[in-house]
């Protein structure tokens, strides 16, 4: 089948560039995750060449950066669709894409080849700030701010000039918060409590507030495109979700302030608002179920084709409903209350929650956006899931769930032995590390990581080839 670029707008083309880099970084995340998992079992693996501290750092940074890339790509992709016009300043947008990609490449190369530096300002500026999840050196921090300001200018100028929809309004306001919060992570102080206090503004308020709102807006857009959901209804849901997400998520920040030296009133604030945080996730799950079921019912009653416009995207969208609820909701609520958190904090429970929540809440919806990008690029009216689409979703979901269960078992063992029985001492940590339950859980984590990676290869194959399959494409 002859394939050609069918994007109506340059902005969508730029969005697909961001998607491409996102997929590459997704692969890098998995590879470095596998290396870290091997090092957990065989500590001498790549010792003194690429230590666990470095591989884990790149594993997590690659995750954050691929998701940011995919989110920016999604906004550039939907912007002309929502506003009805080409993105204003698209040339600058393209230039900023190349600057950002070059900067990310240099940062990763420095992480791999230089790794660490002396405790001086030069290290903070040129190698790494050493602050978990946002390790980028100061020069890259400033570069990121410049690129994001350009992106904000592109988006705002386009939205102001073109049609204004509820989805765009939510995205615009969310992006101000998302970009502004990054500045809190650039504040540096020698006081570790104060440093952590501001650092959580970036980490928590990104992941449990602004990113969730972004996901809600992307899900709303995807539902309109994939199942023909009615815009007015979808946007009404979106406003409720935004209110609930910000209502619970902003002060849910308190659950990170339990043990860093902040006043005790954060215990009550953190407990109450953390307990409310799963509410919007249930709302989002029900929302997808409701819109999908309603539109299917309406089509059935009218005797028209009830199939989705983009089956792979719909499958990922549904897995988002489940994954967000399970990963962010259930696995978060497990250990969010202070009475429990004092035992679980910093155990493998956190890693279990992190794996399932990032996958369920973000990777799913962003992968759905990749498929929408493929549909748009090749002008496909209906896109059907292939064998590779199904294998990708099955293996990645099964692999991540498997890793989560393995890490949960390891965390449970740590809670019982290292924390409850032996009192969280230095020795207790190593006693717990040497238990059979822990070592077997780590073996299973690696096996399930390999399953996830195989699923990723299916995903890449599918993204590259699905548009060539006449059986699965209706133009």
């Amino acid at each position: 089948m002859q394939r050609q670029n069918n994007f109506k707008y340059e902005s969508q083309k730029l969005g697909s560039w961001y998607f491409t880099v996102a997929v590459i970084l997704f692969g890098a995340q998995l590879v470095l995750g596998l290396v870290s998992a091997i090092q957990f079992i065989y500590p001498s693996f790549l010792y003194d060449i690429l230590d666990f501290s470095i591989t884990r750092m790149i594993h997590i940074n690659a995750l954050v950066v691929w998701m940011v890339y995919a989110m920016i790509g999604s906004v550039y992709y939907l912007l002309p669709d929502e506003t009805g016009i080409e993105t204003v300043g698209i040339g600058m947008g393209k230039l900023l894409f190349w600057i950002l990609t070059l900067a990310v490449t240099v940062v990763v190369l420095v992480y791999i080849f230089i790794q660490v530096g002396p405790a001086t300002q030069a290290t903070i500026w040129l190698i790494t700030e050493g602050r978990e999840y946002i390790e980028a050196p100061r020069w890259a921090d400033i570069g990121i701010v410049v690129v994001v300001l350009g992106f904000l200018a592109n988006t705002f100028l386009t939205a102001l000039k073109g049609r204004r929809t509820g989805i765009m309004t939510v995205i615009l306001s969310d992006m101000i918060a998302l970009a502004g919060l990054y500045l809190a992570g650039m504040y540096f102080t020698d006081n570790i409590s104060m440093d952590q206090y501001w650092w959580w503004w970036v980490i928590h308020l990104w992941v449990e507030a602004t990113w969730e709102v972004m996901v809600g807006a992307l899900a709303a857009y995807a539902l309109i495109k994939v199942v023909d959901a009615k815009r007015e209804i979808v946007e009404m849901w979106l406003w409720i979700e935004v209110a609930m997400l910000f209502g619970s998520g902003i002060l849910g920040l308190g659950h990170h302030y339990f043990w860093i030296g902040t006043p005790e009133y954060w215990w009550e604030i953190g407990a109450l608002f953390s307990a409310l945080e799963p509410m919007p996730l249930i709302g989002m799950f029900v929302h997808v179920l409701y819109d999908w079921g309603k539109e299917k019912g309406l089509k059935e009653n009218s005797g028209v084709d009830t199939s989705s416009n983009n089956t792979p995207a719909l499958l990922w969208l549904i897995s988002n409903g489940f994954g967000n609820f399970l990963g962010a909701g259930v696995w978060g609520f497990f250990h969010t209350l202070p009475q429990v958190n004092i035992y679980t904090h910093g155990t493998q429970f956190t890693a279990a929650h992190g794996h399932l929540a990032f996958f369920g809440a973000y990777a799913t919806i962003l992968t759905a956006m990749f498929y929408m990008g493929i549909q748009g690029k090749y002008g496909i009216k209906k896109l059907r899931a292939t064998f590779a689409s199904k294998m990708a979703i099955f293996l990645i979901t099964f692999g991540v769930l498997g890793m989560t269960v393995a890490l949960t078992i390891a965390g449970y063992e740590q809670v019982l032995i290292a924390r409850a029985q032996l009192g969280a001492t230095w020795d207790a940590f190593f006693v717990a590390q040497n238990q059979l339950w822990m070592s077997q859980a780590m073996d299973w984590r690696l096996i399930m990581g390999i399953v996830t990676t195989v699923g990723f290869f299916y995903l890449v194959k599918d993204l590259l080839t699905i548009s060539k399959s006449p059986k699965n494409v209706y133009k």
Partner: protein
Amino acid sequence: MTEPLYIRPIIEVSDFLPIFVSAALILLFGLIYASVVTLVKMQRLKSIYMFLAYFFWILQIYCTYFLTMKIHSQPFTIKAMMIAMVAYLMVPHIYYYLITKSEERYED
């Protein structure tokens, strides 16, 4: 010698599993409650199944109460959680009231 200061609540080792399971069940029962209400409102289930929804809501309350007891919550927190559960009973109904009104407003 100064007595050590314990600021953490002492949870019995045997209580950790029930705590984690009940925490998960609170959300799962809450999800089932909301889902059954959704399916009834969508007329995918008969309205008789609303009893099933309320049954899961009651199970959710029980799990919440059980959890707060096991983690030695303060009396005020227990009351706040119970009030939150009553609010949760109403949330899906408020949702669908808004949905119905929106559909009436925007229906072609």
